[in-house]
């Protein structure tokens, strides 16, 4: 193969200038690409806005539709909930606020209110820890005897609603125990031992002191302290009607009425 490369010193300057020419062209292309992408994004966002305005009722009523809509928003870099907090500030978040009208904001507010209500109502028996799934079911079911009944929500909605409470410093947050998501409504932190026990509890359903001693090689006193603490916070319930006392997670409890 014959080389068309120039020889001699001249070739060096030539190469540099070619490289810089490529670079200029490249950045030009990049810029125009970016500009056109930006324009496209704006178009999509404005379409999304129109869509949201047109279909707000469906978005509110149908959890599946809402989830798809939220996914679409994330794809174009719009956070459905950031919008609700940025309302009024025209410069930042202006678009977001536009895309998500007051209607949808109200929707997440009412979900959040119900989550807070539910957590308060059940804190005595579950120590302020409730599964996102159970939470979702309870909110969907609504409270018996209350007119208006339930709200059609998905687990994503519950999580989004809990997240929307963050600016209030309410202490509500989503935590994960053994792969399962929970709403934690009490700001009290769990120590490592407590988290470990809760994880095991989540996997097995119930535990005994000797099971902890055996599996974690903990001294008995350590296991007992953790259980006592969890019990004092109503995070476990005891069943004394068995050969060795069994400790259960209170999550089997949410139902009835």
């Amino acid at each position, binding site marked *: 193969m014959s080389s068309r490369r120039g020889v001699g010193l001249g070739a060096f300057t030539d190469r540099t200038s070619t490289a810089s020419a490529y670079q200029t062209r490249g950045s030009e292309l990049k810029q125009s690409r970016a500009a056109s992408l930006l324009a496209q994004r704006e178009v999509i966002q404005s379409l999304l806005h129109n869509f949201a305005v047109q279909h707000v009722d469906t978005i509110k009523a149908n959890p599946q539709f809402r989830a798809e809509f939220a996914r679409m928003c994330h794809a174009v870099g719009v956070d459905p909930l950031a919008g609700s907090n940025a309302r009024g500030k025209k410069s930042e978040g202006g678009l977001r606020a536009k895309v998500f009208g007051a209607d949808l904001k109200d929707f997440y507010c009412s979900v959040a209110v119900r989550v807070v209500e539910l957590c308060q109502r059940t804190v005595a*028996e579950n*120590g302020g820890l409730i599964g996102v799934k159970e939470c979702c079911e309870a909110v969907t079911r609504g409270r018996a005897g209350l007119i208006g009944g339930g709200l059609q929500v998905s687990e994503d909605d519950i999580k989004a609603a809990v997240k929307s409470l963050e600016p209030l410093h309410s202490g509500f947050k989503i935590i994960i125990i053994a792969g399962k998501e929970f709403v934690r409504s009490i700001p009290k932190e769990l120590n490592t031992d407590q988290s470990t026990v809760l994880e095991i509890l989540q996997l097995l359903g119930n535990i005994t002191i000797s099971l902890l001693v055996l599996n974690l090689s903990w001294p008995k006193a350590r296991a007992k302290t953790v259980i006592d603490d969890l019990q004092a*916070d*109503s995070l476990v*319930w005891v*069943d*004394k009607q068995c050969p060795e006392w069994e400790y259960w997670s209170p999550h*089997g409890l949410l*139902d*009835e009425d």
Partner: protein
Amino acid sequence: MTTLTQNQSDPFKFSEHYTGYPPFFTLQTSASARQAQLKRWSRLIQRYCRHYKIFQISIVDYQDKDLFRNAKLNKKLYPEDIRTVIDFMVSQDGQQRAEWVTSAKASAWIWWRRPEEWATSIAAWVDETGQKGSVLTLYEIVEGDASENQEFHGMDMEVLRKGLAVLAKQNRAQVFGTDDQQGVKFF
């Protein structure tokens, strides 16, 4: 006006926390969990008694019935715990949903409807059926055809008397006659 729709021969349907949650039968030590648990037991007992139209329960007779004993889980609420639950139901916290028959605490009235609530629904029924000013026997109220679809149809006579006593106090009724031949006039 509530009408009686449930068929009493249908067995009472226990909810999941009862059928699938063993610690429910051990009174919890943490104060908040115990309070929540007592409330649940109170609701369960009221719903159960309402379903079967039970007005009074004796601990001895009921401790081994399905209300307090879950054969499948092999768990039961022990008599002293039943007493604690009923004590709670008697209290203000428990919204006075029970009343010990005697201070021996062997049996208790379960007020799934309190006497005042019975009084209200009987008075409303008398009103609706235009029986104001007329005299009815107690038997008629409880067993008569006219009250057939009322919740108080078939109710305990003594509870009825307690309810009517409430109305009498408000000068809305007057009870007369002797024990098994009592009548009542409404005004």
